[in-house]
């Protein structure tokens, strides 16, 4: 067993066929160690979610090589390979079936993957994310946004994955709820020894959770920065700095003379 959990070499991902083929990710290479949290940051359309989709097995139209947990991954995966990484999506209002109870939502992955002790596993997953056990009888509309995101995390954890792929897990939530979910993700990572890949557009969120961050633009990496570099403000690429300023708020531009900038 090596220290590397995910190794991606020269990954390129595209959508469409024939003349309308669109290459969204271009020649991306990175490694993520076991227990590490790797961030992907960039603006909409830069390909960050597409990288995640290829790693999760949602998009099979990729070239290059992906190794997960010392196994080379092909375009088609076995069911145990698929269980190894699970996704958490951005919008907890859209990613959970509105007419299924939470219990049924959590049972579904267990049925697909043919796991036993289903009731115990559902209870453990709810306990892991800090939800009361009787929530399994509730419907999503009876839950708040933060509680739903906890359900989405429980659904990802129920297959005991080694990797969680987090696609903007807190951007639909209020700041106070975001803090709860980020703390929960931190606790789970330390307790279950999970490896995370976190996609976000907010560098402050990424710097809070991640050890290293790749900054993406137009389907490629412009820079891979460490957390220390972000916090000490010693990043190399100007685009990274633009994103850092963005997470701090509004920066007044050159104003007309006579008006003082705050």
């Amino acid at each position, binding site marked *: 067993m090596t220290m590397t959990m995910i190794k991606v070499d020269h990954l390129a991902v595209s959508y469409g066929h024939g003349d309308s083929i669109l290459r969204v990710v271009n020649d991306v290479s990175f490694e993520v160690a076991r227990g590490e949290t790797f961030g992907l940051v960039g603006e909409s359309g830069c390909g960050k979610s597409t990288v995640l989709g290829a790693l999760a097995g949602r998009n099979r139209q990729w070239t290059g090589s992906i190794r997960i947990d010392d196994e080379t991954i092909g375009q088609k995966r076995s069911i145990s390979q698929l269980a190894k990484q699970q996704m958490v999506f951005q919008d907890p209002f859209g990613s959970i079936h509105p007419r299924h109870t939470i219990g049924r939502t959590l049972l579904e992955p267990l049925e697909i993957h043919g796991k036993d002790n289903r009731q115990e596993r559902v209870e453990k997953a709810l306990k892991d994310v800090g939800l009361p056990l009787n929530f399994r009888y509730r419907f999503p509309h009876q839950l708040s946004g933060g509680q739903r995101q906890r359900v989405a995390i429980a659904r990802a954890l129920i297959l005991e994955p080694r990797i969680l792929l987090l696609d903007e897990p807190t951007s639909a939530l209020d*700041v106070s709820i975001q803090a709860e979910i980020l*703390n929960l993700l931190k606790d789970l990572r330390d307790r279950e020894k999970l490896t995370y890949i976190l996609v976000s*557009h907010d560098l402050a969120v990424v710097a809070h959770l991640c050890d290293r961050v790749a900054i993406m633009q137009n389907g490629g990496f412009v820079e891979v920065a460490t957390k220390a570099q972000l916090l000490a403000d010693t990043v190399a690429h100007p685009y990274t700095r633009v994103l850092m300023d963005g997470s701090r708020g509004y920066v007044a531009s050159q104003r*007309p003379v006579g008006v003082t900038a705050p």
Partner: protein
Amino acid sequence: MLKPPENILTVQNMSVEFPTLSGVVTAVRNVSFSVGREKVGIIGESGSGKSTVGRAIMRLQPPQAVVKADRLQFEDINLLTVPEEQMLSVRGRRISMILQDPKYSLNPVMTVGEQIAETVILHERVSRKEARQRTLAMLERVNIRDPQRVFGLYPHEVSGGMGQRIMISMMLIASPSLIIADEPTSALDVTVRQQVLSILDDLVTERNLGLIFISHDLNLVRSFCDRVIIMYAGRVVETIATADLDDAQHPYTRGLLNALPSLDHPRDRLEVLRRDPAWLEN
């Protein structure tokens, strides 16, 4: 500024109630504030009533809603008693509103130029030709490089950032004295957000307007606005100058500040907001 600070808008003890089958829901309770020629932020979490405040000022609340206030004065107009016909000449001309997502707030079957020109034609009864000239000048003012081409585009043909600049030009073309911006940049990327905000900032300064900036993003309001009103569960818990935000007194404001992950003040665990039922009294 040269003029002494005067209030454009005064709100005293405003409440907005929605009667429902299971009783009256009070979305906004006893809110008082005033806006001069400045940028005022309203901060709050979802459901805190911040958008309802904006809509009540514009008189755009749904018909069943009940707005009560001791005073709701916009310049020389009493917004509580003014008849709807007169409101038509206020809305869009003297108070205008910028909404979150231009994709949903622009008319999809009209070119953007026609939509902007419509505002001037409606409110100032100018000729189509003059309206077109004014529209092109306004588009140029919001840093759109090729106004002639953009004039003939449909909303689905423009990007999010350009759409929001079109919204801003539409709201400012009639020279209002108060703008209510309801989450104007939440749907935009950071670099685009920066451009849109600096255009809005310049226009507000240049035309000496009042701006109500409704947002959930504390960092953004703090760096953009002069004052901030913090709302919680339909109430104003604190009004404070953004420069003094670090000395905020109310535990809710402090909780919000501490819950934010920050590049400048990293911490191992984020503080989780403890909601105190006592905040709901008064």
